[in-house]
């Protein structure tokens, strides 16, 4: 028990929790890989064979193997050293599904064989054959196991290039939070349909107002509250809007899972769908990815903490 606590403490100390990380000798660790140990033993055996059989070929081969081992120590370390990682804004997702966690990677050189792995259980692994010089947006597969607002946990970045003799690694804990909505599971939900608005349009988003748009679309309420000048954007709808609420007499988590699934299905069909939750929280019926993200965020953190 004491060892487990000590080990967890050490792991916490090793991982860097910051929005960006530049890899250097301060946060990189390197050690012989299992293959490196076998390589070393083979080189030693060849040296012994050569020196005892008075033959120089095995000795030369052993020296070559040892020199490659020595060079690999630096090359493997340099393969990660100088790499810059920066966390990006993330989208909400559902639990139990592989999701792309976006990070920005900047490299000044060509770097082969990088392996990325989340240390949280069930999370994914990504193997990159190489990274070109420059700045790249990289998606790392991540899978949330439970609903809620959470960080993805610790990321292990390791490499064994160029020969697999050494393993160089680092830990990084990106602080960017993720909204993880309930697992999508088909089931009953409460629903009711409402007729379209008389003009047949639904309010979609607010955008900064420009004089060319005229006065009709100004959001006067926001302006009156001192939030600035915004214009209202509407989208045309063909179907009747749908309101969804969690099924009554069902456990909360199960009801939310069914709600999440139904919401996803309706939005996939392009039908304007809204949410109504027990404490009166509501999201007006709408379509599009932005609306889906808003719904997921609401589902992720509902009910709100008192």
């Amino acid at each position, binding site marked *: 028990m004491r060892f487990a606590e000590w080990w967890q403490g050490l792991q916490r100390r090793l991982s860097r929790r910051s929005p960006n990380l530049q890899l250097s000798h301060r946060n990189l660790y390197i050690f012989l890989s299992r*293959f490196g140990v*076998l*390589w070393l033993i*083979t080189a030693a*055996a*060849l*040296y*012994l*064979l*050569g*020196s*005892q*059989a*008075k*033959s*120089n*070929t*095995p*000795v*030369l*081969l*052993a*020296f*070559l*193997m*040892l*020199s*490659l081992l*020595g*060079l690999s120590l*630096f*090359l493997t370390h*340099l393969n990660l050293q100088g790499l810059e990682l920066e966390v990006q804004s993330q989208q909400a997702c559902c639990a139990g599904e592989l999701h792309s966690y976006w990070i920005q990677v900047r490299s000044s*050189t*060509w770097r*082969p*064989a990088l392996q990325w792995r989340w240390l949280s259980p069930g999370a994914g692994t990504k193997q990159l*054959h*190489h990274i*070109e010089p420059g700045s790249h947006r990289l998606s790392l597969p991540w899978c949330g196991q439970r609903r809620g607002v959470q960080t993805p946990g610790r990321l292990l970045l390791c490499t*064994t*290039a*160029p*020969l*697999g003799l050494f393993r160089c690694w680092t830990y990084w804990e990106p602080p960017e939070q993720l909204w993880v909505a309930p697992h999508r599971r088909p089931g009953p939900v409460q629903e009711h349909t409402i007729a379209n608005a008389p003009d047949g349009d639904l309010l979609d988003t607010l955008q900064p107002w420009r004089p060319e748009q005229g006065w009709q679309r100004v959001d006067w309420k926001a302006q009156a509250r001192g939030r600035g000048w915004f214009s209202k954007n509407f989208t045309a709808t063909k179907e009747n809007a749908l309101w969804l609420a969690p099924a009554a007499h069902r456990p909360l988590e199960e009801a939310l899972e069914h709600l999440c699934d139904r919401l996803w299905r309706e939005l996939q069909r392009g039908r304007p769908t809204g949410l109504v939750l027990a404490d009166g929280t509501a999201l007006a019926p709408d379509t599009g990815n932005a609306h889906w993200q808003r719904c997921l965020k609401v589902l992720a953190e509902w009910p709100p903490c008192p």
Partner: protein
Amino acid sequence: MPLNLRLLKLAQALLWGQLLISGQLQPVAALGIPMFLALSLRPNWMQARRRLLALTLLVLAAWTVTAPLLERSSWQLSLGNLVWLMGGLKLLESYTPASRRRACLVLLIGIGLAGSLSHTLAASLVQGACALCCVGSLLDLEAGPQPLKGLLRRCLVLVGVMLPVVVAAFLLLPRLPVLWSLPGGAGLGQSGLSAELRPGDIAQLVLQKGMAARVQFSGAPPPPQERYWRVLVHRHFDGEVWRQGPPPAFASTQPSPMGPMRERWLVEPTRLRWRPWSGEGLPTDPALKLSSTGGLWAGTSLNETQLYGLGASGDGISWRSQTPTAWDLQLPQGSNPKLEALAQRWRAQSDDPAALVALAQRWYVSQGFRYSLEPGQLPGTAPLDAFLFERRLGFCEHFAASFSAFMRAAGVPARVVVGYQGGSWETPLAGAPYLLLEQSNAHAWSEVWLPERGWVTVDPTGWVVPERVRLSLAASLNVRERQRLSAGAPPRWLQGIAGQWQGLDTRWQLWVMQFDSIQQRQLLPSWLMGDWQGVIALLSLALCLGGGLALMLWLERYRDNTDPARQALNRCLRELKALSPEPRPGESLQQILRRAGLQHPPLEATLDELLNLYNQYRFGSQPLPWSHLRIELRALRRRLRAFGRRPTA
């Protein structure tokens, strides 16, 4: 099939070829390895574990049964065959990266064992290529799919920058002493003289192709008529066969050579425990001892090429002045009655040994002896009488054996020496000249005891056919035998190349393969060999490693790792760099080219063409073939360059 697996198979095939040519493969390995390579072409086959296990057990059983039965197998050879077989089997089941890495290690051990058995330059080059394939395979396993050219380049750079470290370690690191003596086998000697002198032995030997030894001299080489290289001294004669007789005596304290090294001998594997030498000087290697009969005793047969030197002798007593014993006069009475009767008649004319030698010379010259490598079998009784008085047809050992018997019958101590005579003086473009001794230089001659001069070399073959001694064996043969001797010899132009190759091989043997702690002491200055040797070696290694790393990073910095199409585009854009300002951040190819076109209107059409071609190759519904794009981009690049070099007002 992934490139890494193909490289491992190539390494295995190359190693198999080298081992087959150098004759080190036992039948199981010679047949098994190509069979494994063929089986590995069927990926489904190797995934059936049961089949693989059965095959492994079968191969192991075959190896266990056959390895001890082979006469020439030594422990090293048997172990090597087992490792090479295991390497082939491992490749058969290598379908994960981890198992391929382990297969690579087994192959490297196999290469090391092959290297400990064959040291020639050609074998070393093949072994080096195999090791390079292994490194390439590991690189490919890590960096994923990539073109062969790029992989080869990375592999050569990686190994190339490490060569100075290997050379520094080889030259400077103290050598590990031999901790235990490895048991030797029956010997891998391909060449060698017979321990007995029977008619026909040397005749068979001279028809063998192959090198016996190479000799380098500190000064000028001896003239052709003085090139006698002694190996065995035969003192016991039973009327038919000459043998070495009683074990020779050795000096209780071995004198050390004085002054610089006079001769350096590089001897090929042999079954004999005696080494060839000129008979002058003292060996520098304390493992070699001089016998009282003038033999150079090594004590063991030779499984691999050996290098030893001979330095100037001091004032000690030479083997030439060792007084003869009763063994040097021993002759079975009545074994060759005519020979004995003639010797007695000479004895009646003079009892001076030198005069008796002169009488024998006159007699040999006057009897019309002919030299032939096919004299036919001599009778079991009185064989020398039959040779001397009836057939008069023979070769060196008939003459040497009969002359020594004559001298003993006349009361003069005499013996037969077997070794090499002559040799061709090779002057390679690379490396110092050397004397090449081949199996065809095998020869036998006599030594007689002259009280005032000691043991003197007398070659009766030279009396009968002087060309044999002055020129070569071929010059002393008739046309038919000469053709037989030269059968299978390469054409003259190829012989020249082979000679140069042998020169390189000699240099490789002397500088690399035979480099040991003795040579290390001779090569390095004394201040380097003291207490600071380890520190200086480590500092040098660190320096070489740092230099190699810096060089590699520098090369990496200027490397274009993009795909060929992008590289071709980059080359075009490089031409444009001199004409237009640097690309702005976030600017697309189209924007860059449009801006350049606005700056240089005559280039507009060319730049439009460049953009269209590249976009069509990348995004077109009917992609442009790469060969076409390459040609077009090359032409556009020429146009851009010509525009950049145009004379400006």
